[in-house]
């Protein structure tokens, strides 16, 4: 860790980034770290001719005399208390001007609490628990849409199907979609998703025939899968991290389950390991996400940034990694607007900022925070894995105006 001298403070601006770099989530943590570093180096600190954003022409924060952003990473191991300690260390010892992170909502809670106590702005890029922006914090802003948006998107898609809005699918009579089941893991995230699903189902006039919570990474999900199948649903909805999502698919395949629609709420379903491990079995599976490489078709910038990342690390950007790109982008803009590293100025900047959509890797209308600190211009995507010549492509299905391929409907089931 570089000690902070006055000189350094002028020339480089330290942002503390807390991710789970070791422990069970080390893989995703590593990807997030890569994405953040890449953004800082290639989009903010140095000019980059082959990306058409204004930011790429900056080469440092203009209003601060081209000062560079320096990201200081810290490893939360996914433990809330450790996260809190690191936040203190970053603020007091490393004298960072702001914080970013921390992926798991639980860790974000403690970290943001520290930031609030010390009056240091924290921009959260990737935690989707709705509660986070309902605590009346004055130093906490979130760029990503939260779970409620995503869960609503699903029902918009269902509605779309019944109205024939979906690309390549004829209007589906509602009674073929009416009955839903969900299985969510009983973490904070899963249980709040479950709550939303119940609520929106009523709102949109669907009917949940069976809903269950199950203990995260249990050694066996047979009984859960049976309960779901036994309810004979038209659509199966899931909120699971990677381990469970894979096991669930395997188990359901074993039971020859074949609903019309199969939707996963991000997390496991969206990670790169998911298609890598299940291969053809993912064909037709829907997942909510915020970024899909296919966006390149409809949004040039997205393609260019994705290329940068792919060139360096081999994988496409995923929802998670793309979000940490946006996180850093947002920080750059906030700093530029504040034209200072003073917390009050940054707070003001955060509250006023309005980043145009074309600057972002995401298909969003931009970034503008409401009173609670939630970005109101974000939107989610729903993608579908489609098995084409030996590899699973994630195609955009929703929003309808961004659809990149015909939706496979009904869910083909497993051979």
């Amino acid at each position, binding site marked *: 860790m570089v000690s902070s001298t006055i000189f350094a403070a002028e020339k480089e601006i330290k942002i503390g980034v807390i991710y789970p770099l070791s422990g069970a989530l080390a893989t995703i943590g590593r990807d997030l770290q890569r994405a953040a570093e890449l953004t800082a180096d290639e989009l903010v600190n140095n000019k980059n001719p082959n990306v058409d954003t204004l930011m790429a022409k900056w080469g440092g924060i203009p209003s601060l005399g081209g000062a560079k952003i320096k990201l200081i990473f810290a490893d939360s191991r996914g433990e809330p208390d450790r996260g809190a300690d690191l936040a203190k260390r970053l603020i007091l010892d490393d004298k960072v001007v702001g914080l970013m992170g921390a992926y798991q909502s639980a860790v974000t809670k403690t970290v943001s609490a520290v930031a609030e*106590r010390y009056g240091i702005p924290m921009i959260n890029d990737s935690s989707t628990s709705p509660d986070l922006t309902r605590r009346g914090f004055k130093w906490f802003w979130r760029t990503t849409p939260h779970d409620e948006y995503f869960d609503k998107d699903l029902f918009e898609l269902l509605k779309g199907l019944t109205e024939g809005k979906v690309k390549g699918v004829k209007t589906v009579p509602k009674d073929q979609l009416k009955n839903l089941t969900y299985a969510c893991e009983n973490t904070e995230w899963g249980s709040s998703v479950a709550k939303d699903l119940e609520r929106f189902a009523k709102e949109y006039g669907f009917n949940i025939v069976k809903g269950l919570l199950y203990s995260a990474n249990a050694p066996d999900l047979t009984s859960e899968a049976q309960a779901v199948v036994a309810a004979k649903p038209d659509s199966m909805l899931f909120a699971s991290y990677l381990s469970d999502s894979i096991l669930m698919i395997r188990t359901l395949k074993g039971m020859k389950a074949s609903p019309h629609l199969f939707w996963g709420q991000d997390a496991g379903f969206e990670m790169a390991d998911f298609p890598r491990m299940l291969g053809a079995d993912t064909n037709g599976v829907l997942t909510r996400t915020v970024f899909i490489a296919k966006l390149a078709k409809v949004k040039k910038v997205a393609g260019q940034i994705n290329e940068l990342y792919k060139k360096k690390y081999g994988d496409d950007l995923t929802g998670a990694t793309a979000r940490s790109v946006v996180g850093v982008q947002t920080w750059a803009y906030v700093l530029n607007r504040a034209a200072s590293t003073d917390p009050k100025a940054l707070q003001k900047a955060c509250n006023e900022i309005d980043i145009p959509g074309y600057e972002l890797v995401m298909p969003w209308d931009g970034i503008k925070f409401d009173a609670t600190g939630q970005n109101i211009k974000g939107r989610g995507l729903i993608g579908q894995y489609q098995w084409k010549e030996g590899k699973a492509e994630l195609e955009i299905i929703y929003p309808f105006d961004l659809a990149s391929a015909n939706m496979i409907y009904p869910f083909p089931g497993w051979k």
Partner: protein
Amino acid sequence: METLKDAFDFSDFSRIERIILVLFSIFLLVFPWLGFGSFVKTVMIYFLLFSLFGMGWNTIGGYGGQVELGKAQYVGIGAYTVALLMVWWRIPFWVSMPIGVLIAIGYSFIIGYPLFRLKGHYFAIATICTSLVLQDIFINWKLVGAAKGIELPIRDHPDFLYMQFKSDTYYFYFIMALFYAALFYMNWFRKSRLGYQLRMIKDDEEAAESLGIDARWCKIKAYSIASAFVAVGGGFLAVYNLYIDPYSVMDLDLSIKIALMAMLGGAASMWGPIIGAAFLIPLDRFLGSWLGAQKGLIGVDFMIYAAMIMAVSAYQPRGIWGIIEQFRKRGA
């Protein structure tokens, strides 16, 4: 009176030990003003907290010789009582913490009574199971926030009633006070009747019974004392992190860590738990922050940590304190 005298009387320790204790106390007193960074401060706080846990565990696990691996559930009880009472009825820390301790004690009697029918490994595993059961219940119990956990409302101004301060210095002195309370208590405990009886039970339970000692009851008493200690620490955790969830305050890892502190430092000895904490906590935290974020070194910090544990338990079952005494004997 006599009790107090015993509590403050360290005369049966060797001169060196007493000198070190004094120097250490002075160090603690001035520590916050030595200009260490906040990270070192948090490490110190966790060191004190875990020595508190360790000393508590030492009553049943060390002196009583019962391998108890379920202490996390009492951390949880302490933490949750403080958090819930604060969220529901705005009850200040100074009221809710004692309540938490009382609940912990009550619960420990309920659990302890059947638990101490068991011996050896059956007992050890059973303690783990009880803790896991309680954790699962809390994970699914809507009323206490289920898996979401509980966030304590942040007060805009530092507030002594609710133990909310901006600077860690206050937390440091608070946990230090608890630490000394525990220290003096243990100093009394080891000389108390119960202390003697527990050590007898550990040495030879059959003989103990023949000497009019109700072994099971003694164990239960010690168990609930340990639980009370741990619950206090739990309450502190709640106000210190301002957020608790079943995964962080009721986890098996925590239970094991608590026992590990005492055992690795030297069970059934006054200084054991403190030494253990002084050894493990910094090791864990510093390794974590140095190696944790290094790419390609993921897991190395744990491997070192684990190697240390193996080495000590293989070389000297009586822990670091055992090693020290060993060398002393050689010296003498």
